[in-house]
Structures are given as C-alpha cells and as structure tokens.
C-alpha cells in the first residue's frame, strides 16, 4: 500500500459560491482538481490539510470557449481536452502540443489546465515520502532549515515543471482568481515567484490562501505568428521535463525568415517558468545560425538548472542550447543541415 495521508474531511461543492463558503469555514482547506499533484503530496505528507475541497462537481469551470480574439479555458478542463480541442490545435498549436506532452494519457485525463499552472515546484529532496525527508533532515521548502540543492543559501531552488506555462507566458495569458475576499485578475508572469516556495503564497501575484483559479484567458496570436514547444525527458511518457522550451516568432516575412518579434520561455530549469530576456536585437533580423547562437546565449543566461532532478545539471544546462536548436529548426527547416553539421564537428 502507499503511505497513508493524514486524515481529512472531503467536501464536494457544486458551485464556486459553495466552495468559497467552505473555504471561509475551513481556512486550512486545500482545493483538489484532478489530484495528480495534490494526492501524491498528501500521501507524502507534504501537505496535511484538515479539509479538502474537491472541485469536480463545479461544471462551469470546465470547457474551452473562443470569444472574439480570446481563448478562455476553464481551470477544470482536462489536459487531454486542451490537447485535443480543434480550435486550440488550429489557433494555438503550441499549447495543444505542450498539453499533449504532459505525462502520459491517464494523467492527462485526470490532470487539469488549472492544476498544471498551479503545479507545486519540484525537487529531488522535496518530492519524497515523509520518512525519506525526515531521514534527510527535511529541507527548506518543507519542515527543514537547509536547502540540499544549495546548502549555503536561504533560497529554494525547487523547479516549476509544468509544460503548458511557457507557451501561455509567450501568449500573455491572464488568470481569473477568486477568494472569499473577492475576485481579481493577474497576468501569468506575475503569478509565479522567483523562490521555489512561491506555491505556498509568497508572491503578491501568486495564489493567496484560499484563492482559487477559475479560468485562463489567452489573446489569440495574429496570423504570421508561429510557436513551438520542445521538451526534453528520458522517457517519452510520464516524465516531467528536464528542460522545456517554448519559442514564438511573429514573422515580418516568413519566406525570408525575417523576424518581426521573437520570444522564448523556459520551464523546469528555474523555480518559475521564465521568459528569456535580451532578444530585442533579433527584431528585424533573419532566423539564421547567428540568431540561433544569440538565442542560445540568452537562454543559457536565464536557465539555471540545479540538482533538483536525478539528472545531471550540467547535462540539462547543455540541453537548453540543444532545445533552442531544435525549436529553431522547426521554425526554419533550412537550419537543420548546418546545425547537424555543427553538432558533428562541435
């Protein structure tokens, strides 16, 4: 049997109002959507709430709507529904692609879009059983004093490892939140914090205690925008990304590979999904070998893989550059030959 979780009362409200009433009554409660992240953490006693509010019966948080220039995704929409939605596939194929690369089919059928964005940060010293963490003197993120990844510091390096966030970041997604205190809207970028403990409510834009993510709003990209998501993992199912990279190019002239605007974001290598800065010099430039090198340089500046997974951080660091190449190749096929040749001779 798995380790037992601490006992809790399960509540199953049928509406957001009911959920808010429950949260007012039981302030230590946690929301449960698909459970693919939370249930594991309950059994590992990373979370020990007295009450759990299961959201499955709240029907109006499920579904995808296209309204003018906006895509609205209910937080309870399953990852597989996002991946399979024809309009998502047509208008934001990179989101469908990223969703389709989350874990494996059974997890995608249970896991939700909201849960994927609210995914707790991950670390090899944190995602362990109570016994294991205790035998390792716990850690900064939960019950302990020391970060085993960087023992000298007071910073938590646990990595955000969701697949859909980097794509949504590049599309300026906004989140609709509600708590017993009221509703608000934040950008996805301000939702996350730079310290791995943001998930427990350290950031102004992040989830406050008792707050619930209702919907994700995404402005649809204009024609001539292209976006791809590249995921590195050992197994082509189940695994979280070792590195995930989204690259978006709004072409000024696609045939000539001339860039109108370019944006890139990383996941799994920082405590939050991180937009890569310093890409302005590429505006108006051609997506060629020099542009690839610039993108690699900037990505390496942003991505800081640490010993948060069982894979070697040096390998993950090297792979950031490789994923840049793979993403660029998909946007500009002509780069394939020169990049492969370069790899052979590197």
């Amino acid at each position, binding site marked *: 049997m798995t380790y037992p979780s601490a006992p809790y009362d399960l509540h199953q409200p049928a509406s957001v109002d009911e959920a808010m009433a429950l949260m007012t009554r039981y302030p230590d409660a946690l929301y449960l959507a698909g459970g693919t992240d939370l249930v594991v953490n309950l059994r590992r006693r990373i979370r020990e709430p007295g009450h759990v509010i299961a959201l499955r019966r709240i029907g109006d948080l499920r579904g995808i709507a296209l309204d003018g220039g906006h895509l609205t995704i209910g937080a309870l929409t399953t990852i597989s529904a996002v991946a399979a939605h024809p309009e998502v596939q047509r208008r934001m194929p990179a989101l469908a692609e990223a969703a389709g690369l989350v874990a494996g089919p059974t997890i995608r059928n249970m896991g939700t879009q909201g849960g994927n964005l609210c995914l707790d940060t991950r670390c090899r010293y944190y995602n362990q059983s109570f016994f*294991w963490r205790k*035998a390792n003197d716990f850690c900064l993120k939960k019950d302990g004093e020391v970060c085993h990844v960087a023992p000298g510091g007071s910073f938590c390096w646990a990595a955000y490892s969701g697949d859909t966030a980097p794509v949504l970041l590049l599309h300026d997604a906004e989140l609709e939140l509600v708590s017993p205190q009221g509703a608000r809207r934040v950008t996805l970028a301000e939702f996350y914090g730079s310290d791995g403990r943001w998930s427990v409510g350290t950031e102004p834009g992040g989830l406050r205690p008792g707050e619930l993510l209702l919907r994700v709003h995404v402005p649809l990209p204009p024609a001539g925008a292209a976006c791809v998501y590249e995921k590195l993992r*050992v197994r082509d199912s189940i695994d979280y990304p070792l590195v995930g990279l989204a690259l978006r190019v709004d072409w000024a002239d696609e045939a000539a590979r001339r860039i109108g605007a370019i944006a890139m974001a990383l996941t799994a290598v920082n405590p939050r999904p991180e937009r890569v800065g310093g890409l302005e010099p590429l505006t108006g430039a051609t997506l060629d070998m020099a542009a690839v090198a610039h993108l690699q340089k900037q990505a390496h500046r942003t991505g800081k893989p640490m010993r948060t997974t*069982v894979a070697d951080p040096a*390998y993950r660091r090297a*792979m950031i550059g490789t994923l840049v190449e*793979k993403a660029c190749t998909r946007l500009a096929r002509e780069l394939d030959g020169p990049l492969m040749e370069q790899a052979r001779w590197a």
Partner: protein
Amino acid sequence: MSRGTRGAKGESKQERKIVHLEREALQTALGTRQHKYIGKPQPLIDGVDKSTGRGKYSGDFNFPDALVGRILRSPHAHARIVSIDVSAALAMEGVRAVVTGADTDTPFGVLPVARDEYALAKEKVRYKGEEVAAVAAVDAWTAEQALAAIQVVYEPLRSYTDPREAMADGAEQIQPHKPGNIEREVDHEFGDVDAGFAASDAILEEEFYAPEVTHAQMEPHAAVGQWDEQHGRLTLWCSTQVPYYVHMSLSAVMGLDMSQIRVIKPMVGGGFGCKTEAQSYEMICGLLARKARGTVKLVVSREEVFFAHRGRPATWTRLRLGCTNDGRLQAVSAEVIQRGGAYGGYGVVTILYAGALLNAIYNIRNVRYKGFRVLTNTPANGAMRGHGTVDTRFAFESMLDMMARKLGLDAVELRKRNLLQTPTMTVNDLLVNSYGYPECIDKVLEASHYHAKVGKLPFGKGIGFAGSHYCSGSAKPVNRSHMPHAVVTMKLDIDGSITLFTGAAEIGQGSSTVMMQIAAEVIGVSPARFRVVAADSAITPKDNGSYSSRVTLYVGNATVQAAERMRDVVFQAAARGLNAFPIDVELVGDEFRLISDPDKTLPFKDMVEIALSYEGTIVTKGTYATPKITHGGENYRGAGIGASPAFSYSAQAVEVDVDIRTGKVTVENVTVAHDCGFALNPLSVRGQVEGSVWMGMAQGRQEETNYENGLPLAPNLLDYRFPTIMESPPIETIIVESNESGGPFGAKEAGEGSLAAFLPALANAIHDAIGVRVKDLPLSPEKVHAAIQQARKARKVSAAPIAEAGR
C-alpha cells in the same frame, strides 16, 4: 463419433493398425513424433484471471478483523541502538501489538554462511530504511501514529556508500564477523593465465561500471499472517518465489516448529529475484500476528520495496583479454567489486556467479577471476534476473567488439572462432551438454541482416551484436539440502479429474501451465481434466522454489515421472476394461480404444471406475535430483555456483538511432534467438525471452539507483526510470531448440538467458552508430552525451567529426 463410422474411408482395421504402428515407429526413429499438448502455444491457465483483475494476490486477501501492519525504519545509515521505548505506542487506542528486535533472537538467511539478519534490528542499524520496530493497529493511520510514538535513541556511526571506502583500512566494521567489510573474496585461476597472455598477440584491458538496479516488479511485497490461538499455529499468505525458505525462516525467527506453520503463495505479481530470499516483512507479519493474536496484513509501499531491495549490485569490472591475431581467445582475467549492501543475503552466490559464468559460452582455457563482495550501509543486494552474470557479460561482450576492431576482424566472426565443442567440461568444471549458441548466432545474423548493416548505416544509426547464457537451475541447492530438488504428486479421483500438486511457485513465468502441459502430454489426457495446485505447504510437496530458472527442468522432470506412473495406472485400468494388453490401448479424446481394433472403446469415466475399484483414489509421485556429473568441481571453494544440468544460450542484434545533440538513443528493433532446448510452450518462451530483452534494455538504457546521504535518490517509479511502452522496440524472437537430453522433452532455461546480451549489443550498436564507446551503464542520454563530449575533445587532435574519430 459413433462406432461403425471409424475406418470408413475404405481401409481395413488391419491396414489402420499397420499405418498407426509404422507412423509411431518412424516418428520415434526420426525424432519427429507429434506432440499433442506440448510444443504448441498454450495461453497461461491463470492469464485471464490476472488480466481481468479477478486473480487474488497476497494484498487481496481481506479478512474482517484484519489489522494493518506498518514498519518503523531507521533514519540512520549506521548507528548503535541505545534504547527503544514502545510504551507510548502500546498505550494508544487501536494499537494491538508492537514488535522490536527484542521479540526474536534467531537470525535468518538462506545461505548457511550468511545468516546475519534479524527480522528487526538488534543493537545496530546498518542502512537507512532498515526495520527497527513494527505495529499492528486497527487502521493504517493509527499504525502510522503509533510508529511516530516509538522512541528510539541512536548513536550514529561512520557509514559507507562506496565499497572502496568501506574496504579501506580503518573503516568502521559493519558486520561483526566480516573484518574489512569483505563479505566474500574470491580468487580463482583455471589453466595458466600468464602463459595465455604471453601467447596472445593482442591484449586489451578496460574498466566498466554498472550501477545498482532494482527489480521494479509490479506487485510490492505483501503478506497476511493469521494466528490460530487455539492451536498455536500460523498461516501466512505472502508474495514469494520460494515458500519453502519463508517456511524455514519463520520457524527459526518465531521459534515455532515448522509443523505449526503453513505458508501459502497466492498469485505473485513478479519477482525477478527479489522474492527469492525470505524477507524481514514476512517475519514481521508472523511476529505481529502472533503477538496480536489475530490477523495482520502487511503490504509495503513502493519506496519500501527499494529498502527491501535485493537487486543487482553496483559493479566495478576490470577486464583483461588476450587474443591471437587469428582471433583465438587465449586468456581472460577479471576483477570484480560488488557493492553488497548491509547484509550478506545471496551476495556470496552473486560474486561467484560473476566469475563462474565467464565460462561456458566461449572456449577459453585460461581464466582468472578475483571478486570482492563488499558490505556497505545501503539496502542489501541479492538475486536479480541473470543473477551475477549480467554486468560481467556487458563488459566481456563489449570488449569482444573492441578486440575485433583492434585485430581488424568481424566482431561476430571473432565469437564464432571461439565456440565450444560440446559436450564438454569447462576449465572450472561446468558440464555443457546442449549448446545452441552457434545456431542462435546464425539465425540472428540472418534475420537482422547484421552484415548488410554493420559499419554501413548512415551516421547516427548503428547495429550491435552480443551473446549471453544462463544456467537452468543450480545443480547444488544453495541451502545445502540433500533432499530431491523437486517432488510432484498427482491424484486421480472419482470425478475423473487429475490434480497436479507442486510446491513450485508460479510467479507469472507460466510454471503451472507448463507442468499441466507436460502431464497431459505424458498421460495423453486432455488438459481440460487437469487442475494445478501450487505452493501451499499444507497441501503441496516441498519444492526449492522459483529461482535460477530451475523450474521447467527440475519440476518438469519430476512431473514427467509422476505422470508416467499415472499413465501406467490409467492404461492398465483401461486395458482391464477392454480386456487387452496396455500396449494395445490408445486414448483418443475422452475415449480409450484398441489400436488393433478401434471399434472396441471405453469411456474415460469407465476407466476411472475400474482404476479406483481396487485401491480407491490414485496418487502417484515423481521426483528429480540433478545428476552428479553436473554438480561442478569439488577441488576448489565456490565450485558449486554456476554448475547446472543445462545452459541456455542467446544471441542478439540491436539497432539504434542516436541523437548526437541530446545523447538520446532510440532502440529501433531487436532480433533475438534463444536456445531453450525445446519450447514446451512456445507462447510462454516468447514472453519470457521478450521480457528478458526488455529488462536488459531497462538496465542498459536508463535504470540506476544512486545514494545520497544514505538514501536512494529515486525510490519511486517516476524517478526510477524504467522504460515505458514508448521506449519499447519491436522484438523479433527466434526459438532455437538444441534438445537438452537431461531436460523434460529436451527443455531447459528460457526466462533469464536473453537479458545480459542486450546491454553489450546496445553499447556495440551505439559505437557502430557514432563511433563512441560507452563503458558506464546506463547508456542514458546524459552518459552518451558526456561520452560524445569526450570524443569531441579527442577529435580536436585528429580534426575529424566524431564518428570518424571514433571508428
């Protein structure tokens, strides 16, 4: 079919009889006798129950009053236990029993030389996760809280994860009886190794490393213990490969006569070696049930499976190989260090296997082996599919390719020049009788188009070849028992059914099905009349269990004997009923008839009536013991390990695609040929061979257990990355039948021998694809990527791209 329609096609009775007798005689002479129930694909008799979820595993036994057992584990890698106070736990509501090391004074262990474990730690803990105390309570959370209330005071000691540190002078001793933390040192030399190297034109010496891997079987360990207070007896259902070891160990640990213990093995969801040894949790379950005077269910978590472990040890191999210019191997010298973990377990056997099976696949007359099994403060290692041979075979078959390249020879041709001439006795006294390896090689070369591909595929794509072998059971039982290795009984009763009783543990490998096929074939009765009752100590005869691929050959031979005796009774009864000699009687469908006069028939149920009318229920028995000539040498220590009645052989070709930018290797396809002697159940043989290949792939590509601060870093199936269906290549399986004269109908091992070859075949394929040799397992993206980086450094000297620089 009614009487009178037979022989209707114009042939006289006499003609039919002649045709029949001639056919039988001819088939026997040519060895082409048609089998009825063996040699044909037979779905496993428990397959539907398993795949529909109807089958019951140990954890599925629910008794209304059952308590939940949970184990308190050591948070220290090495520490003296100063005190344990369980009073607060015992005082808690819902807690029915607490046990600690004080509840047992007898250590247990399968090997007489390694009985160093107690069910619960006494005086010292030796690894993080070791069992210190256990609780039986009304529910899991109560048990968990009771564990938290147990006060243990520890005095930490220096601990070791690296065997080379544990072996160093001045290291803290982990076991009192093992100075220097050496569990076993082996020093064997056969032939004249120095002379062999002197006679060699080329000598290679390389180091290889294989990290620790675990079985990752689907079903975690589970037991249900039921204490009968009235009779002072224990019944234990548990997920084991060897109920007999559990039975003996429970008796020792609980101080309870064996006659008062019943061990039942329900369905088992995979073992692969980890359920061969009796384990602490089984002992703890028995102790808790007795102390609580009730029923206790103890199912461990996946993480706890990593602590129970008994997997393949981390292995450092230094291999030296000498060869003449024309490709004749002259000498081999191997030095192996295995990180054994905190207890002996099967370790002595593992370190001996690693040396013994350097032999019995190629003809090498000069062999030196030096092995160290080292104690460390990590969970104990033990038997795992391909026990002891896999990491050494990885090194050896990788090195054969390196040697071939050095000599300018074809890598497979080098192997072919060093085949055994069989039957033969190897330099370390292993009898090799049947030897289908040459045929395996040829079949794989042909089916994989190896020679059309090797060295000729585009950059990034490659093909690799390797071979391996394994024993069909240990000729000498490791616990030094003198009883027959296998006993089977069979019962024919009033209902006309035949029940086969065997202690052999069906663990998913298909043993019950194959025994049924063998019995049906020998007697000539349809399998529909059979039931197999397996592994219940109160009902079935004692058996040494399912390990070292012994069951098909050993229990199969015992089944043949029991079935022959049953056949005699059955045909004598039928002959009596037909008023004829037994030799003139044949069984067709459910009817006996005379060969000389097919119109004379007797229904099966009438035969049963006649057979039972003399002495009632018919019971027959068959036994098997290994022939003395297969027992291995007697003039050196450790000679019993490796010796077997027969060896299986495997050849494999693996094709890969390597992404040089990520180091990711895609296995595109595998061609494997396995010599199993004779495929009693070809469906099952294919399943076993595919499973072996897959498990070799798992170890070869991505599995590893590494420790930090004494804890396994990936004690779950998300981070312990065995392959998923996405990584599973198409496997073409070719069955080779060398007809082992000592096996039932010629059969021998099928379940392990094809594992080891995959690993070196993969390394050889990667080398063919990109010219880079990786000697550290697993050949994971990061290892392959790092090796590519190294090759690039070398390239800076030669100014060539990586493939050319490596080739």
